[in-house]
């Protein structure tokens, strides 16, 4: 057991446990904050996997963007009288059974498969590589993503924007 392993387990436990809290706690706010931890943990795992830039993006976009959005969502869709906003659950039994089987299968898939692995190299910074690949091989996808963001913008605005005419209805 070397440091790498210890750090991995640390991040793995953080990720998994907080993710578990995310999906089980009845308090929405707890849940949201646990998600924050999960995302951090994942970011750490990225680092372990030598994806430094990705780890940063993870934190910036996810934590800085998506999570905030989600929190806004929570706040805007609940009467904020206290931080203790609870939510109910449904389908517990089928979900538990289904997830259990699914996890079993996944476990089997992940462990039984003879993945092609190579000795890992010393991680080096990936920013240059990523940058190059983005505007060459994946340029089309890059542009498509741009379009996608535009659409998301229009869409989100279109939905969320208050319409005077419609308000009157």
């Amino acid at each position, binding site marked *: 057991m070397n440091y790498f392993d210890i750090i991995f387990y640390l991040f793995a436990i953080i990720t998994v446990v907080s993710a*578990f809290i995310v999906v089980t706690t009845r308090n*929405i706010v707890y849940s949201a904050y646990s998600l924050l931890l999960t*995302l951090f943990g994942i970011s750490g795992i*990225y680092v372990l996997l030598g994806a430094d830039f990705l780890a940063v993006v993870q934190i910036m976009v996810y934590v800085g963007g998506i999570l905030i959005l989600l929190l806004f969502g929570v706040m805007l869709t609940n009467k904020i009288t206290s931080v203790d906003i609870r939510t109910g659950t449904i389908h517990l039994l089928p979900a538990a059974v289904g997830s259990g089987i699914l*996890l079993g299968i996944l*476990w089997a898939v992940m462990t039984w498969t003879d993945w092609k692995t190579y000795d890992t190299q010393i991680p080096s910074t990936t920013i240059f590589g990523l940058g190059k690949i983005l505007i060459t091989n994946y340029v089309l996808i890059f542009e498509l993503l741009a379009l996608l963001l535009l659409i998301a913008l229009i869409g989100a605005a279109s939905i969320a924007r208050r319409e005077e005419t419609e308000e009157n209805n």
Partner: protein
Amino acid sequence: MHVGLTHFLIVSAILFTLGIYGIVTRKNAVMVLMGIELILNAANINFVAFARYGNFGLGGQVIALFIIILAAAEAAIALAIVLNIYKTFSNVNVDEIDKLKE
């Protein structure tokens, strides 16, 4: 046992499963969205881990990058829709929104 590819994959598997579980069980639409984020992240871990251990180059990371961006876009739209639902139904409990059925 040394930490290797499988360990990362198992983490991702657990996240994936938890994501599904969350989507299915939570009443609150926002919570459901959180489950979706977990799934996406699980896939991301896969991509990065495979790329790393399989020596596939940077492809995996780029893909993960795209997915993060996509997730952001999706979250934006999703929350807009949830807000709209809230305006219409005055709650965001997914299981109570079942006017369309038969």
